[in-house]
């Protein structure tokens, strides 16, 4: 397929590979990010951060900073204690008993992770602020750290003594434990596995940043933030800083990625607002890369204990999950809810009759965790897809076969899962078959066998994962049942202006997803006009007052649906007006190519633009009709959507060095109806690389003292294009019945599918050594160590050992 420029008018738009209208400005550097916004007289903040994982703050002396040139002010946490109307917010108290530590923008008594902010310097330039931050003297009484989850559970070191324990909450989804126990008691095969989801750093290309500009009159503020959630941020800033919501306008300008890390309310945002209020000057803070590693939320951080029970044929009869989740030092906006987002998914795409999930979430002296691309769902998918491969080995069948024996059938939808979800639609076996064909699976297995038989140091591994996920967050009533403190709806307004141009106002807040392009396509498709005639307004609470923003693959399924429904309401009104003026019945009007035509009398027409102008002049409206063509929709989805697919990874593993190279990747994704397949592919590409990154490269590594060892992009290994093969993508289309567009969402699918596919491939390559698991990331050293251990255990295959000898002999022969 080829990419197309915006069509001149009419013609099918939905499902075309329309070029993103966002990209020109991004590629030429014209897009304005927070750091680009020049505001005369703006002051700069620099934070003083704790170098200790846990420490009592004995004294903060800012006098040295105040003496430095260009410094306007400097404050300790105690100095600013009275600025706060409330603590930094946690919007998801998952249980009534959940323990929640006090969390202020600047720590006052204790610093609880390396990077916890304890003082702030305000200066006339960024350089002056950073120099002066070095001159603040903080006296700490260092305390023992606790970064290991299982050690935290012992409460030997308690992060927040006032809570009395490190356990934040326990939560369960266990409809029938007796049935689960019975299934295990009679199981022919059992898998009992422990997986560690290492902490990850989201590492958006643009670090965070915030600029608060006090309006010259009236005491109100405009807050520019590199955020995914301008609407939620406005509410939360009002509550934490005590500024009336009506005095706050929040704008997310161009935002360079988030992956969940900008789905939060951060200390620096609140600080900048409070200091702009106190100093009556514009205040800016721009995050450094190491601050981004230490003081922006991290993702994952779970230990999963997963058990499968299965009958003799490998049909799964029960899944039992015991999860320990790392909250980090504090509860950020949705920290406690992340394990719950995965809790419903551990039975995967399989017809599982018995299920039990329990989660214990604990505080540690490390950076708070929160939503990171997939947020709970990649973790759950990893666990079930890794465990299914192990089950296949136990049963003695191929990984694709164990999946086929357990898939929910295509005729079973809507399918009510044992965890209580109703899956909207799916064809899991269809996606698997398509992926195996796409990958040339039989040939791959033959090549793998050839290499194994030949010996040699470069062995192939092939890994499959059949994933699904729950997106389109979320039905508000379901959120209520999970103690989430907001709704899950999305808002849109569509107005056809007097000239026929269309303005769309959306409550979503894109930061790389291409909503301007996609929303224009949705509207243009329904109106039969060119997308070029549709302008999309977003990410500014003054222009788009209602919204719940962008995260959780929700924007298209909820926000895009709201746009479509608002468009349909505008069309309904336009049709009534056109019918009135053409003196025909509404049912006799057809809208095509932006023109209403009378059925059977194609010469009697009225263009939408003409209808809009008539609605604007209001000279001849039907009785009771209000002027103008405008409609809004606040769409609260009746259910989640459930995208799915199968991914297949091929790795080459060097058995001498342990190095794993990802040599091929095939992804078949079903995200329902596709608005713009090029954007879908882009999401899959980026998502797959992010998932593979967890499998092979990335880890927020801490030492036992709580120091983040991978705090720069030299040590935190975000992969580049050089490490990743060209990804083959294909799709199946199973429309969702949940919304008028039939869409599901694709923002996180790649990430969810990739990590288990890649690790299944690595373990497949290692299986001749008797190795059943490898921890993430599967670094060369880790793989080498696993092979060495297997060789020491004597479980390595004789063929490989013989090959090693042969190689040596051959070398010697050639040498002599």
């Amino acid at each position, binding site marked *: 397929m080829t990419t197309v420029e915006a069509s001149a008018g009419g013609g099918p738009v939905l499902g075309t590979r329309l070029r993103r209208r966002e990209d020109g400005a991004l590629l030429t550097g014209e897009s304005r990010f927070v750091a680009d916004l020049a505001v005369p007289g703006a002051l700069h903040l620099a934070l003083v951060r704790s170098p200790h994982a846990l420490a009592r703050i004995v004294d903060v002396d800012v006098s040295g900073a105040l003496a430095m040139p260009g410094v306007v002010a400097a404050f300790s946490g105690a100095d600013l204690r009275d600025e706060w109307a409330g603590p930094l917010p946690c919007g998801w108290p998952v249980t009534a008993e959940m323990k929640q530590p006090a969390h202020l923008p600047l720590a006052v008594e204790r610093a609880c992770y390396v990077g916890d902010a304890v003082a702030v310097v305000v200066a006339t330039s*960024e*350089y002056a602020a*950073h120099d002066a931050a070095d001159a603040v003297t903080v006296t700490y009484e260092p305390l023992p750290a606790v970064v290991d989850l299982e050690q935290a559970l012992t409460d030997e070191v308690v992060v927040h003594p006032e809570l009395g324990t490190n356990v934040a909450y326990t939560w369960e989804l266990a409809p029938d434990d007796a049935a689960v126990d019975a299934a295990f008691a009679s199981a022919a095969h059992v898998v009992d596995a422990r997986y560690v989801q290492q902490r990850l750093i989201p590492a958006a290309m643009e670090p965070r940043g915030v600029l608060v500009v006090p309006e010259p009159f009236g005491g109100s503020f405009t807050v520019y933030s590199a955020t995914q959630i301008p609407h939620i941020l406005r509410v939360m800033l009002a509550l934490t800083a005590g500024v009336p919501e009506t005095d706050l306008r929040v704008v997310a300008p161009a935002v360079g990625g988030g992956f969940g890390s900008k789905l939060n309310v951060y200390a620096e945002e609140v600080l900048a607002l409070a200091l702009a209020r106190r100093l009556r000057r514009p205040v800016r803070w721009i995050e450094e*890369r190491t601050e981004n590693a230490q003081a922006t939320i991290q993702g994952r951080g779970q230990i999963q204990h997963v058990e499968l029970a299965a009958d003799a044929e490998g049909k799964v009869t029960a899944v039992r999950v015991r999860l320990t989740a790392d909250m980090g030092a504090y509860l950020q906006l949705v920290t406690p809810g992340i394990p719950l987002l995965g809790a419903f998914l551990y039975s995967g795409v399989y017809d599982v009759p018995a299920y039990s999930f329990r989660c214990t979430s604990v505080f540690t002296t490390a950076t708070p965790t929160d939503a990171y691309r997939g947020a709970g769902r990649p973790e759950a998918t990893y666990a079930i897809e890794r465990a299914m491969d192990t089950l296949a080995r136990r049963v003695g069948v191929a990984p694709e076969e164990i999946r086929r024996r357990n898939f929910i059938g295509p005729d079973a939808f809507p399918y009510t899962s044992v965890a209580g979800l109703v899956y909207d639609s799916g064809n899991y076996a269809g996606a698997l078959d398509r992926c195996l064909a796409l990958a040339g699976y039989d040939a791959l297995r033959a090549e793998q066998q050839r290499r194994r038989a030949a010996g040699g140091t470069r062995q192939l591994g092939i890994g499959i994962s059949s994933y699904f996920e729950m997106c389109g967050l979320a039905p508000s009533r379901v959120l209520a049942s999970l103690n989430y403190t907001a709704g899950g709806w999305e808002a849109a307004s569509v107005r056809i202006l007097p000239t026929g141009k269309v303005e769309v106002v959306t409550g979503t807040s894109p930061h790389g997803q291409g909503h301007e392009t996609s929303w224009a396509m949705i509207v243009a498709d329904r109106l039969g006009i060119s997308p070029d005639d549709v302008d999309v307004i977003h990410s500014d609470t003054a222009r788009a007052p209602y919204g719940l923003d962008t995260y959780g693959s929700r924007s298209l399924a909820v926000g895009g649906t709201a746009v479509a429904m608002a468009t349909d309401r505008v069309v309904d009104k336009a049709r009534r007006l056109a019918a009135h003026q053409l003196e025909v019945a509404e049912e006799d009007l057809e809208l095509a190519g932006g023109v209403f035509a009378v059925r059977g009398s194609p010469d009697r027409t009225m263009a939408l633009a003409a209808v809009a102008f008539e609605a604007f002049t209001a000279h001849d409206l039907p009785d009771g009709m209000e002027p103008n063509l405008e409609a809004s929709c606040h769409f609260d989805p009746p259910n989640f959507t459930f995208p799915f697919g199968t991914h297949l990874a091929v790795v080459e593993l060097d058995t*001498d060095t342990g190095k794993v190279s990802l040599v091929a990747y095939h992804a078949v994704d079903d995200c329902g109806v596709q608005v713009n397949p090029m954007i879908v592919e882009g999401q899959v590409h980026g998502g797959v690389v992010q998932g593979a990154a967890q499998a092979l*490269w990335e880890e927020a590594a801490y030492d036992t003292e709580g120091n983040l060892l991978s705090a720069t992009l030299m040590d935190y290994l975000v992969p580049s294009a*050089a490490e990743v093969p060209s990804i083959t993508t294909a799709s199946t289309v199973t429309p969702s019945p949940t919304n008028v567009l039939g869409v599901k969402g694709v923002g996180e699918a790649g990430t969810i599918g990739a990590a288990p596919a890649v690790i299944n491939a690595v373990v497949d390559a290692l299986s001749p050594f008797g190795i059943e698991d490898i921890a993430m990331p599967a670094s060369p*050293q880790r793989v080498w160590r696993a092979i060495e251990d297997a060789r020491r255990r004597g479980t390595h295959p004789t063929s490989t050992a013989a090959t090693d000898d042969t190689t040596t002999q051959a070398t*010697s022969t050639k040498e002599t």
Partner: protein
Amino acid sequence: MIPARFDYRRAGSTDEAVGLLTEHGDDAKLLAGGHSLLPLMKLRLAAPAVLIDIGRLSDLSYIREEGDAVVVGALTRHRDIEVSDVLGRHVPLLAHVAGQIGDPQVRHRGTIGGSLAHGDPASDLPAACLALGASITAVGPTGSRTIAADDFFTGFLETALRPDEVLTEVTLPKATGAGWSFQKFNRRAQDWAIVGVAAVRNGTAGVALVNMGSTPLRARAVEEALASGAGDAEAADHAADGLEPPEDLNASAEYRRHLARVLVRRALQEARPST
């Protein structure tokens, strides 16, 4: 990412650079491509009071044949080395190694003189120069002198250069037709080697290691084993003899020793003359 305050001086000639170094002594650092120094300054791990920019001394950027050697000016960028016909013909190892450094942006800015003067044991060019038996020319207030690569790297990020000397030229004996290999083991293409091996076989063997100690170093035990008639695999087993490699997130010392043995074996096999 905000460096500490520093003064900036731009040298218009090598002599002027030497003069500025003499004036400022240990407070000063030379700035060439800046791809090692500037990141350290941005992380505030280095805070020189004065930067002396020699980046515009274009007369120090050249690659020339001189009899049995190829001489390379200190300001020659990695990219120019990578694509040099002269080096490709006579010292192909160096051209190849230069093409493996960092990423294209680094290769278009970084210089061979800067890489050698920084003396980072994890850098690739120092090991290549050791394996090739290069020599290094430095100019100071009293004139120029030549230092063998073997004598150049004296400690962690320390070299035989005096505080008032400017590295001006690298002399590489021609190795036309010799077997060679560079084995760079890393997790991402842009990274420093976890372990690297540069090998040249030209009658005798020159083998040098990246990131296996506090300096770029020669694998003496391997070279000696080969000289006394050992086979490739047997010689490679000595790759880590007597070495104390660093430990970091990517590799324990034990794993580095193992990698050195594997990579030296591969390097020796690849560098074996085709005769």
